[in-house]
Every structure is written in structure tokens, then in C-alpha cells.
């Protein structure tokens, strides 16, 4: 058996893949959080619930509506995004003028309410969601077997992250978003409908969480609490990357996923806390985060 640093190659590659998959979810979720925080200055504690809503939307679309995975991948994020837009318009937008703590408390409460509602109707146990037929099975890469669905998760999340990055960095809408992040009043004085931009941004961030939820449904099970377990790690990722940094959120997401995977190989006892240890070190050495601008 081939060994690297005293570890079998299969084990190393296997954990690297697990790390990349976890990293894919970290990246998608922290990207949404970063986009929302950047413009709205709201720490969106409902992000885990929105991720869960994406997974449940896919499950219900399939079981109730007979709508397959591929359509759900498009529809579920839109459903979550529309729901988020309504929440922003009717409730969250009233809190912008107050201390940022109110936004945090509101979204935290919203997450509890959504998760509680789903627990009431669906119970706490997970429900399976089968991957689409086209993505079942595995390919032999020579050094390991790669389940096709897991490879797809990495590719799809990377593609969406790059698309969102391009949207923000290279388009007119992205220029409005970047400018409004710096000085919303002036952008509005130029004639841009900033309140609408805020609604769309919240919907985009939540839609990204919903997309991650659909991707996750076949990997993990669909359960009301699937998001609350993940969101704590994702907040650590955002802190390490730098609050509000788009590129930082993406790169740090994948990086910390991989670091976590490798820790499972070399020192499994630390794998659950390694991200938080890194967060603590980053906060001491570079409080603005790895990619953050000093505020």
C-alpha cells in the first residue's frame, strides 16, 4: 500500500475529498453570509435555517410535486430567496437604523422559529434524498474511488462561487453593490434604489444557502436541524476569511474544509476543533481576518 507521511494514500485522498466537500458547503454558505453582511451589516443567523429550507424545498418538491433534483436545484434557491425577500421587506428592513445587534437577534429568532416549525411537522430525524440517477455510482481514479455525486458537489459549488464572484466584481449590479457597501447614502443619492438592492442582496445570500441545501440533501440527510449544526462552523469560516470579504469567504471555505479533512487523517482528536483553533489564532494575529481590510 502506498504511504504518504506514514498514512495510506487512500485514507489521505478520502479525507481530502471529504474536506473538499465540507469546504464546498462552507464556501457557499460563508459567501452568502459575507454578501449579506457586506451590504446589510446584518449577521444573518437564519443562514443555517435557509440552508435547511433549501434541502426541504427539494425534498417536498420531489415527494409532493414529483419535481426532480435538477429542477429543484434551480427552484429551491428561488423559493428560499423569495421567502427571504419577504422577510427582509416586512421585518428585517425595519431594523437597519437600530444597533446591528437587533438584526442578529431577529435572524436568530427567525432561525429558531423556522427550525421549530419544521421539527413540529417533520420530526427531528433525517429523511433520505436520493441523488439523481445520472450522478450515482463512482469512478475509479486509480488511487481511490470517487463517488460521482461528491465530485459533482465540489464542481457545482465552485462554479456557483465563481459566478457570484464575477457578478459582484465584474458587472454593473456588482458595482452598485460594492459602492453601496461603502456608502449607501451616496449611491442612493445618485438615483440607485438602494432599499431594493438590500432586498435583492438578502435574497441572493439566502438563495445561495438554499442552493447549498439542495446540494447537501443527497449527501447528508434532510432534517430540520441540519443547518444549525453547520452554521457555527460557517461563522468561524467567515471570521477567519474576514467579515464581508467575498473572495475571503470562498477561499477560506475550501481551505478550512481541507484543513479539517487533513486533521482527521493526522490527528483525528483535533478535527472537531481545528477550525476554531485557527479562528482564535487569526483573531489574535489578524483581527480583520485573512482577507479583510482593516476597518
Amino acid at each position, binding site marked *: 500500500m502506498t504511504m504518504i507521511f506514514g498514512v495510506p494514500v487512500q485514507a489521505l485522498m478520502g479525507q481530502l475529498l471529504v474536506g473538499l466537500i465540507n469546504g464546498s458547503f462552507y464556501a457557499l454558505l460563508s459567501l452568502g453570509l459575507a454578501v449579506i453582511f457586506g451590504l446589510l451589516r446584518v449577521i444573518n443567523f437564519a443562514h443555517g435555517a435557509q440552508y435547511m429550507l433549501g434541502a426541504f424545498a427539494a425534498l417536498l418538491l420531489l415527494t409532493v410535486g414529483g419535481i426532480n433534483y435538477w429542477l429543484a436545484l434551480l427552484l429551491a434557491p428561488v423559493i428560499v430567496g423569495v421567502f427571504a425577500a419577504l422577510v427582509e421587506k416586512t421585518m428585517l428592513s425595519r431594523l437597519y437604523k437600530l444597533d446591528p445587534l437587533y438584526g442578529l437577534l431577529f435572524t436568530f429568532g427567525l432561525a429558531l422559529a423556522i427550525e421549530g416549525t419544521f421539527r413540529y411537522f417533520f420530526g427531528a430525524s433525517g429523511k433520505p434524498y436520493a441523488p439523481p440517477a445520472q450522478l450515482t455510482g463512482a469512478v475509479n481514479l486509480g488511487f481511490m474511488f470517487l463517488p460521482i455525486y461528491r465530485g459533482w458537489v465540489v464542481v457545482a459549488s465552485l462554479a456557483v462561487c465563481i459566478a457570484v464572484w464575477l457578478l459582484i466584481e465584474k458587472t*454593473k449590479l456588482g*458595482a*452598485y453593490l*460594492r*459602492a453601496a*457597501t*461603502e*456608502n449607501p*447614502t*451616496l*449611491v*442612493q*443619492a*445618485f*438615483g*440607485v*434604489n*438602494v*432599499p431594493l438592492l438590500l432586498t435583492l442582496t438578502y435574497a441572493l445570500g439566502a438563495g445561495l444557502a438554499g442552493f447549498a441545501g439542495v446540494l447537501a440533501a443527497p449527501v447528508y440527510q434532510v432534517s430540520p436541524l441540519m443547518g444549525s449544526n453547520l452554521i457555527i462552523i460557517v461563522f468561524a469560516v467567515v471570521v477567519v476569511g474576514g467579515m464581508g470579504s467575498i473572495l475571503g469567504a470562498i477561499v477560506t471555505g475550501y481551505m478550512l474544509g481541507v484543513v479539517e479533512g487533513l486533521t482527521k487523517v493526522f490527528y483525528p482528536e483535533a478535527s472537531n476543533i481545528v477550525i476554531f483553533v485557527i479562528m482564535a489564532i487569526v483573531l489574535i494575529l489578524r483581527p480583520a481576518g485573512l482577507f479583510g481590510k482593516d476597518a
Partner: protein
Amino acid sequence: MSAPLLNVRDLHAWYGESHVLHGVNLTVAEGEMICILGRNGMGKTTTLRSIMGILRKRSGRIEFAGRDMTAVALHQTARAGLGFVPEERGIFASLSVEENLMLPPKVAEGGMSVEEIYDLFPNLKERRNSQGTKLSGGEQQMLAMARILRTGARCLLLDEPTEGLAPVIIQAIGEVLQKLKGRGMTVVLVEQNFRFAAKVADRFYLMDHGRMTAEFPVAELPAQMDMLHRELGV
């Protein structure tokens, strides 16, 4: 005289509890360039911010092109034809020079084309791919003005464009303002530098403690010099 393009009547404004404008009256005819003079803290910037609708806690009447602007949402003010160039210039660091230039949406036909703007400000063309805030202070001021000229705004609210700039740059800004006047642009200029303003403005207001205390055309400027020196403390 026909109805003024901008007509401000008894404008009061507050920052929180602090009452800073105490009944400002101001009229500007179409194509006219007026200048508000006054020492620091007398309410000049606040007047512009209130007209633009950035400062919302205000009362009185702000009529622009016959329309009352006090009830208009901030993002609709620009659409009515008012363009704002803030004192701090407001160049965005996360945008390139060209992105900064293209940022404000067009509000009407008749704005300058990008080519015309680059002819007027060749430096901006040269540096169009630089980060907005990497420009010099003078270039940032040019950019802040240029991006409003693109939009087709009818009336420019210009807050201390010469502040902190070298004489040669101030002269260039003066030339730009002359050209804008030639195009029939209406301008409300806030300035401390009345030697600069004397070259471009048609009429002057003097502001003191949130009120207009004097108003005179540029022809009377020589006669008002003693009073201005006394009031402005220069």
C-alpha cells in the same frame, strides 16, 4: 424673471435634536451659477444635503422644476435632475476609476458622453483602470464632477470643489465650470474661496448661522469686499 429652476423657501433642518438650518431662502434660475459663501459650520453643506434629500429631517419647501422635492424618496431625487458632488468627493475604493464614472444611472438625455468627459479630463482616461481612491485629490474631484456630468442632471450641487487642492488644479476646475456654464448647466456652488467663486458665479449668498444674510450679483462683489472680509474672517 421666469420661475426659478430651484426655489428653496423657509428651509429648516435638524441633525438629531440640533436645529441647524433656520429658514433658508434660495432661488436659482435655469442656467445660473450661484455661490453660497460662509464660514465653517454655518450650514452650507447642510443646505446642499437637505436640498438633495440626504438629510431627511427638514421642513419648508424645496421646489425643483416646479415639483416639491420634500416628499420625494432619496433615490428619486437624482431622477428629477439634481446631481450631487459631496465635499468628501465620495470616490469608491472598491471601484475602478471607470466604474466610478459609470456608477450613477443616467437620469435624462443631454448628459456628456464618455468621450466628451475623457476629452475634458484626460487624466481620468489615462487612469481609468486604477482604483478610484488611488487618484490624487484633484483627480478625485474631477472624477466626482465627471460622473454627475454623464447622467444628464440639470442642476449640480457642488460642495467645496477647491478644498485642499493646488492652485493649478483649482484653475482647471474653474475652467471646467466655465465650460459647464457654456452648456447651460445650473450650479449651486458652496465655496470658502471667493476669489475662485468670483470667476465663475453669477450671484452670491452669504450664509451665517443657518440663514442667508446677504445676497448680491457678481457685479456688486467689489463693493461687498469689505463686508466679506469681515464676515468670512479672511
